[in-house]
């Protein structure tokens, strides 16, 4: 399932320092930027709705009511009902819960794992570095769909496995970027001093290199969360992700695709919510990246 979107985050270049005035006015302009605030608000709403879905939804997301199947959005069912009479809004919130949970776990695991690998790879260099980079190549080249099918074939289909698959399909991005940063940090004075002083490699990695890649790490996290949400949706769309009857955005879009003509809300509603979430995450990530760069230069 290696769609373009899931393997490569378009990294915007960093313009030179002189290109942007790195002074207080830019920083405060950034802070007042309403887009960032709106994105964060949207994310907060979605996360809130997802976390408290069981208490917020008026209906049981798995509550089958064959008599009220495929009803258009109305006051009783804001997002309408699906082919088994289940309330689409409740299912979307429940789906948000699962999709976001998977995405957060995966991005965190991939991020931490990738970062650690990147730092160690940069630090040790040599054949460790070569092998790691070859493994990263493999991760890029291996289609997530194949990986998903193998994992399902071996350990069976359940939510934990989706997290595993999405994690394995995404660590290399972190590893590569962090490695590049770590490589440049490696040669800075304080690191060399620490090594001369006899610090163990692990200590050097954790105390000196890690804190300095933290900003990049955080920015990557927010930029990637959108991609990972979409990857999970794509896998679920193909039936390789979340299993029935638990809803996830991807499975809902897939289930509804036979009904697009006469009951479009079953697919389109979760799709729109997903798009808004990813949009908000992307915008927030972009602004965070701008902000950290501006902060860095304002120092």
């Amino acid at each position, binding site marked *: *399932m*290696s*769609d*373009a*979107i899931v*393997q*490569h985050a*378009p990294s*915007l*270049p960093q*313009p*030179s320092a*002189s*290109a*942007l005035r790195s002074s207080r006015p830019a920083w405060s302009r950034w802070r007042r930027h309403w887009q960032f605030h709106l994105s964060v608000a949207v994310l907060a709403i979605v996360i809130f709705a997802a976390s408290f879905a069981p208490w917020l939804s008026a209906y049981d997301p798995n509550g089958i009511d064959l008599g009220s199947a495929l009803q258009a959005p109305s006051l009783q069912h804001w997002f309408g009902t699906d082919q088994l009479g289940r309330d689409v809004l409740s299912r979307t919130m429940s789906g948000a819960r699962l999709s976001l949970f998977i995405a957060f776990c995966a991005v965190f695991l991939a991020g931490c794992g990738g970062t650690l690998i990147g730092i160690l790879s940069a630090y040790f260099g040599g054949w460790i570095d*070569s092998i790691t*980079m*070859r*493994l990263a*190549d*493999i991760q*890029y*080249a*291996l*289609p997530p*769909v*194949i*990986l998903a*099918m*193998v994992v399902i*074939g*071996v350990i069976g289909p359940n939510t934990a496995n989706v997290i595993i698959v999405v994690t394995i399909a995404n660590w290399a991005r972190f590893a590569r970027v962090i490695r590049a940063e770590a490589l440049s940090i490696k040669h800075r004075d304080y690191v060399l001093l620490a090594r001369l002083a006899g610090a163990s490699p692990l200590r050097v990695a954790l105390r000196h290199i890690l804190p300095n890649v933290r900003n990049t790490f955080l920015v990557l996290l927010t930029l990637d969360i*959108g991609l990972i949400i*979409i990857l999970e*949706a*794509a896998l679920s*769309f*193909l039936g390789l992700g979340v299993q029935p009857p638990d809803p996830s955005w*991807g499975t809902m*879009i897939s289930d509804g*695709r036979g009904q*697009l*003509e006469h009951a*479009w809300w079953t*697919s*389109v509603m979760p*799709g729109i919510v*997903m*798009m*808004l979430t*990813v*949009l908000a995450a*992307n*915008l927030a990530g972009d602004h965070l990246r701008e902000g950290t760069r501006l902060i860095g230069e304002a120092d």
Partner: protein
Amino acid sequence: MPAFLLRRIGSALVTLLLMSVLIFVMVRMVGDPAHLMMPPEATEADRALFREQLGLNDPVPVQYARFLSTIVRGDFGNSFHFGVPALSIVEDRLGPSLLLTLSALAFAIFTGVPLGIAAAVKKDGFADQFSKIFAALGQAAPPFFFALLFIRLFSVGLGWLPTGGYGSWQHLVLPVIALGWYSAAGLCRLTQANLTAVLQSEYVKMARIKGVPEHVVVLKHALKNAALPVITFAASQFGILIGGAVSIEAVFSWPGFGSLMVESINQLDFTVVQAAVIVSTLLFIVINFTVDLLYALIDPRISHV
């Protein structure tokens, strides 16, 4: 130069080898084709006989050794289901995949770059606003969602274009846009950001002071500098798009690489999965190498290989 070339080829071979082992083992972990292909009435003896014919009764390392010895001759074995050489099946699907990928890339370049330029040149103008929405939507929506909506609106609803399949240029339109929008979005933002930065640089300010006309400034000086990241980004997208826009191929019934991989692994057609993944990895390596080469050629200051 030759040293770097040798090193690259060496690492490429290592990657290919690692991948071949990985996929060889992984695919055998998914299931047993004998169970799938033989009818329920088959006994275990029948299935064992079937496996024997497919060469699956030997221990995995033996099978792998046999596999390695044949692929150097270009023989990836016969497909379990189709009975023809697995490589030929992969080759047949490569054409449509390449067509889709190249078209999507072309769409991305010819939509994203001009939009990015227009947005950079006139900040807060119409192009700038439009490009922001274009880019935001493109990076937020999953391609399969776009695909479903496009079919619903343009194919079933308005009847302008076919619903799927492969054959004429009309079949290409919707899949290309659904697939390429994401890359177009990225290119648009990249071009805009780069061009904006360059347009504010000292170098360009000097040119303006010297009285060079604006359009020359933009086209000659600024674009040249913005070109490099755009080229590398575009080239990097290629490698990914070819890998398998699986959900697009599924929705549009496009006979491509991605859906081949899904189908063949669903059917436990080991030989085809192996051939498909190895060929795709090879393509990946070639693309990456070309990108790095392009990079080194265009900007000789960078000597990172």
